[in-house]
């Protein structure tokens, strides 16, 4: 199978005198895999996420995502890489409040230069799948948490990314909305989408992920595959 993520001896230090925030870590994620990253606060989950998305660069080691060595890319190339290969879902949605739902969803497509009509069609398709079509002209501020997270997922998927990263996607949701999002991620995984899910929510990890890694103080403490766990 194709490896979507490849981390080789990756270490990230924020201060040269301190212990590394992450690593050294070697990790691969296969295409179609749903990886849950768990661990207590300060364990290096967000650092790992930032390295995989190219928002941060490792102090040592190599990060390859979707076949591309991203730790050596320029800011411009990283931006192009992110918009093409990565979809991101955040805990607090990070929708742009002054854009409508459909404009939010279309934004990453428009950044890649996708023609307006094509971007609108893709957004419409995703809204249909995610059940938010009736909110197309609404602004995010008027939606419930669950609906906002659906919008965020739609936005993350608009460019058909190789990798979907979800950072505590249910962290800001009530139970019912959290359940909705869980089902949504599960559906995406079943559809073959490669997912990296960063979460404190172990039931969510168990439900959605085919593999779970547990980080403690920046080190890989546990790496379990769902089949093995079961």
């Amino acid at each position, binding site marked *: 199978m194709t490896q979507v993520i490849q981390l080789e001896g990756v270490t990230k230090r924020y201060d040269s005198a301190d212990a590394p925030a992450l690593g050294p870590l070697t990790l691969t994620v296969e295409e179609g895999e749903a990886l849950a990253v768990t661990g207590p606060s300060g364990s290096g989950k967000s650092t790992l996420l930032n390295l995989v998305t190219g928002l941060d660069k490792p102090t040592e080691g190599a990060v390859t995502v979707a076949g591309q060595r991203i730790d050596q890319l320029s800011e411009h190339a990283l*931006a192009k890489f992110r918009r093409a290969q990565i979809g991101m879902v*955040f805990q607090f949605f990070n929708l742009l409040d*002054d854009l409508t739902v459909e404009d939010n969803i279309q934004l990453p497509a428009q950044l890649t230069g996708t023609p307006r009509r094509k971007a609108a069609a893709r957004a419409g398709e995703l809204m249909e799948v995610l059940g938010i079509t009736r909110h197309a002209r609404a602004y995010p501020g008027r939606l419930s948490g669950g609906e906002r997270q659906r919008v965020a997922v739609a936005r993350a998927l608009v460019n058909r990314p190789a990798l979907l990263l979800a950072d505590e996607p249910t962290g800001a949701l009530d139970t019912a909305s959290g359940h909705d999002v869980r089902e949504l991620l599960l559906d995406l995984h079943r559809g073959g989408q490669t997912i990296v899910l960063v979460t404190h929510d172990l039931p969510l990890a168990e439900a959605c992920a085919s593999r779970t890694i547990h980080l403690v103080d920046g080190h890989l403490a546990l790496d379990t595959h769902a089949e093995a766990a079961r």
Partner: protein
Amino acid sequence: MSRWGTGALGRIVRSGVGRRRVQTVVIAVATMMAVASAVVAGSLMVATNAPFDHAFAAQHGAHLTVQFDPAKAGAARLEATRQLDGVTASAGPYPITTIHPVDGHGGHLPGLTLVGRSDPGGAVDHLTLKSGRWARKPGEIVLSSTFAGPFLKTGSTLKASEAANSRTLTVVGFALSASRTADAWALPAQVRGLASKDSPVTSQMLYRFDSAGTKGQITADRKKLAAAVPSGALLGAQSYLDTKHAADQGAAATIPFLIAFGLLGIVMSVIIVGSVVSGAVGTSLRRIGILKAIGFTPREVVRAYVAQALIPAGVGIALGVVLGNLLAVPLLEDTEQVYGTASLAVAWWVDVVVPAVALLIVGIAALVPALRAGRLRTVEAIAVGRAPRTGRGQWAHRAAGRLPLPRPVTYGLASPFAHPVRTAALLLAVAFGTVATTFAVGLTQSLNAVGRASDPEDRATVTAVSGGPAAQDSGPRSKAHGAPPSADPAKVRAAIKAQAGTATYYGLSQDDVTVAGITGSVQASLYQGDSSSGSYEMLSGHWLSGAGQLVVSTRFLERTGTRIGDTVRVTLEKDTETLRIVGEAFDTSDDGLHIHADIADFAAAEPQVFYIEVKPGVSPGTYARKLSAALKPLGAQAFANSASEQENMIIILDAMAVLLTLMLVSVASLGVLNSVVLETRERVHDLGVCKALGMSPRQTVSLVLASVAGIGLLGGLIGVPGGFALHGFVLPVMGHAAGTDLPPSVLDVYDAPQLALLALAGIVIAMLGALLPAGWAARARTATALRTE
């Protein structure tokens, strides 16, 4: 606890100032530029307000400059006049005579009033030495600074007259007398030595009186002096009111221009300082909420935030006063040259009032949002920074999203609508910047047009002079006073006509004539041949087309109460002719009384200079060399004209316009910079999201730049008509102050493509201000931005 020096409040103030370094620096720099502009503008406005009066007071000028016959009123008599009732100060007697010097090239200078003084000081008419030094020995002369220029410098030599054995005088300095008591000064013994039978030595006395404010009072003072000396001893007197009138008239033209720039500078300063400070306080609401949550009282919060604005603004104001003074000095020196007045300085009260008003504006600008923050409930204040923004500007995003432009650009274009007040301030700043730019461009073109229109004879490609080399080498001053023609004008004319390559030519004679209804003489230009190529810009009527016609200036018409079509009696020597006024020309020379007529009307007049146009393809230089060779045996010569040197005043005004415009544009750009910094800070999280979604640094820059482009364009579209209107208003006022209407070539200086380009000035100003924060936004770390709320 002190007000905000130590303790918790002091710490909050210090940390607020230190933490928001960019904001602090922007407040300081914007305030500095605004205050510097206001100091410069204020100083110029003060300087242009009665510049003669300032110089006259500084020099303790003479109310009356009186010439006595020493044979009738000796030293003792003159000494007694000092004690006359009403005389508050006096100086003299100084020996005085008139010389007719010739420069090193044989050029004749106008007759100079030479006064003997052993030093430039004195109780009255304390001269300002502009360059060089005072005369120390015979053979040295100090000239009035009005003569300083490329042809006469310190070290230049003059012959006292054209006599072969006349004394050589070395120019050792240039001095300025606000009272215009002389054209030149030398040691008293030297003056006596240069006197001749035609120009005997007389005595000059300078007086100040306790009442000399009106013409009537001056006349009364003069009578007192005349009564105190034997009959006929008082040869003549010059009132300072006449000198003041001439000086003020010269200065008057520039006053509307400086006032326009001054007002623009002050209004822009108020807008920028107000928006910068209120914006800075307005963006700190969440922090204010936190302070209140931990126990700060509303009053303490207000004090803390006003102080956070006042500290950098205070530093900016102090630096602005220093910068303003430094910039004002060269401008005031230029103003001084324009007005021909003595040393001007920044008025002390400008240095006090400007910073005081700036502090007041900063205080009010900070107080209003700080009071609002102080009144906010704690929970609301905290929520301001976190809650989704209100719906302001969403419609703009919807509309902009439909534009066929890249998404970052449309996103940026819609951004300003989220902050209408800030956007309005920004728009005003850009609009004022564009007004200043448009006005300055128009003014510069108008001044250049005035320069071209003032000397139409400079348009000729070749000039032939029948008065020897003086007219060529000694500059404009001596051109009109060249030596008597040594060549026969008829032969010169024939040579020009015979010269291959001649297209058209006309002869010119400049003579002093008298005109019925005007006291004293006026200068007349008398033309021979077709002078249409050297015609002045016409305000009404037409240029000379034959004998019996007269072209005059606006002031001439006003002074004589005549109109086009009326007749006027003009006398040259013994020849009096009645000429009909056929045109009103744009001509401010000779105090606006210069007249133009056909030489055929005056038998005694002969052309001294010929202005020639060559045929297309003929090199003016080659033509001039050949013509000169042909004229040399006749005692005349020819030379090709170089591009006309602009008059000093026009160059100075151009420079002032450019400097003032640059300052105003800088202030406007700083206003934009501040707004974009605020906007970027508020949007840092959204920008982080966009970058996380794949927005490249270049797209981020285009988003930020697009957020001001619309404002820039709109500001330009508002500013250009504003500048156009200001130009249309100020120029005629300047013209009227100089005593003339202005021709279309001076007024209609803008063309459509130029106005379109000027409209883009608003975008340039906006882009200049936004470039820096756009770069910051592009470089900001996405991961950090995403964590920012």
